[in-house]
């Protein structure tokens, strides 16, 4: 049977407009557990020198699910939302 697969980034739609910054990391609090990287569908988090690191292009890739914020027991991740009227548009949900 033919392959059926998908790439997350090809299946996400976005509006125009500057989202502004809406995720930040407090490196003092981060203990490098890496859970933020595991729960992110868009692969925006990685570990560098024992600390989480957020992809610089996260504004154009984030799905706005906030899983990284919820999973972080050390509350090192602050998550707000993109500016009103910007960011992900869910067409078929």
């Amino acid at each position, binding site marked *: *049977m*033919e392959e*059926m*697969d*998908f790439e*997350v980034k090809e*299946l*996400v*739609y976005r*509006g125009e407009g500057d989202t502004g910054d809406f995720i930040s990391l407090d490196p003092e609090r981060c203990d490098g*557990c890496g*859970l933020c990287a*595991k*729960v*992110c*569908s868009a*692969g925006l988090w990685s570990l560098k020198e024992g600390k989480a690191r957020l992809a610089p292009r996260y504004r154009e890739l984030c*799905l*706005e*699910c*906030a*899983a990284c*914020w*919820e*999973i*972080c*027991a050390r*509350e090192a991740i602050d*998550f*707000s*939302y*993109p*500016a*009103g*009227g910007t*960011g*992900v*548009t*869910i*067409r*078929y*949900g």
Partner: protein
Amino acid sequence: MEKWDVVVVGAGPGGSYAAKTAAELGLKTVFLERGKYPGEKNSSGAGLGTRWWRDFPEIMGELPKLPSYRRIDMIVIKVVDEENRLRLVQGTTGSDRDGSRWSGSLDKGMAGASIYRADLDPLIADLAVAAGAELREATLATGVIMEGGVVRGVVTEKGERLAAEVVIAADGAMSTMARSAGVRNRWGGGCTLVPQVDFACDEEKLDAVVGNAEWCWFGPFNGAYQVNFRESFHLGAGKWLRPDWDTRPQDMLKRVMEIPAFRKFCKVVEARPREYQAHLLPWLKKPPKTFAGGMMLVGDAGGFPCPLDGEGIWHACMSGRIAAETAAWAISRGDVSERALAEYERRWKASPLGLEHSFGSEFVEIWDHSIFDPELMKRLIQLILEMSEIHPFSVLFDWSDDHVSCLNQHIEHLFDLLPEFSQFGKRYIKPLNAAISPRVVRRALLQAKVRMPALRLLPDEAYLKALSLLNKRLGERLKGTAGR
């Protein structure tokens, strides 16, 4: 500063329904939506159950006109084994005991409608606007205005300050309002992450293959749901966000997409993945604190989704309605303090919403100790398959041996499997006995009596009294049912 009676944050189903109710009660109401329009930032397409016709008929009457609508008459559970083979297909549908009860055409049980939130949310928001509430789109509320420990309004990203007698926070699982007012922060283990893919497909072929049903896939992996729309469907899964998280969210769906029966289905209906989304879904034993001075939390922001199946839209609309009614009551009394708004919790606890959550702990435990444990799922599936064999057609038509031997083999296997699950049943299913109403227990006991000739002449109350004396716990349950 603008002055409102009620500021609602969020125009999802809960926020819009709260705004509609508040406006209908004569309150000056504004509701804010961070998306360009309601439904843009929705979380997951929905299956709506028959209780919707009872509670929100004004919405249900409009649904069939919307593009994504599909009528749902049953749910079909598909169980696959470790080798990805489809082993059991079981339909769950309600008894047609009283078909006219709510909708005139729908039975009890798992029947209802599928609808995209992209369709549903604008519909409810329109009802709120028609009732007189003002909708502000593309408006992100960033925090609450606090005075003396009481919420007095909200601030938007542009620095606008909206004063309110009461703020209704319907801003989703991450509720900026709840955090800003200091009601709560993270859910801390009580929240799931739900990845979901939308597939476009051929409408007629979906009609032929699926018809008016939702599908669920279970196997030695996390289960997945398949919500079927007019010419598309969603495949979604979920799991609690806890430190044992071990998979990329999309891989939970890709695991299901490996099942040959699923792939074949996709091929036949010409399905192609069209959109991916991921959302937080609070899945709690019971909602934590749902109010503060000057503020009430509704829908996901309040932690209301169903503890048994995670459905949250009915819960959002119900809590939105109750919050708006409580706001009107509190404003008319001139007291919106925390103490006054505790009335909100009393009211939702006394509603069907509260009844559902009164056994939240038991419901959550069942899931926590079954579907999210792949090892246990493997054996549970064996049990389910074996139990489904104890069925007149299956047992008689087992062709592996002569039919008498087959029957005995099945019974033997079942008894091998049962002890393993007796503990599960005892710990997680048995507590639900307490959810059965004393009235129903009483009726069942009296029906049993009729079938026992020796007892037939004994008066009902004397018979129940005797049973109560023999079984103390039963006596407790039957207390207060005499003469009903």
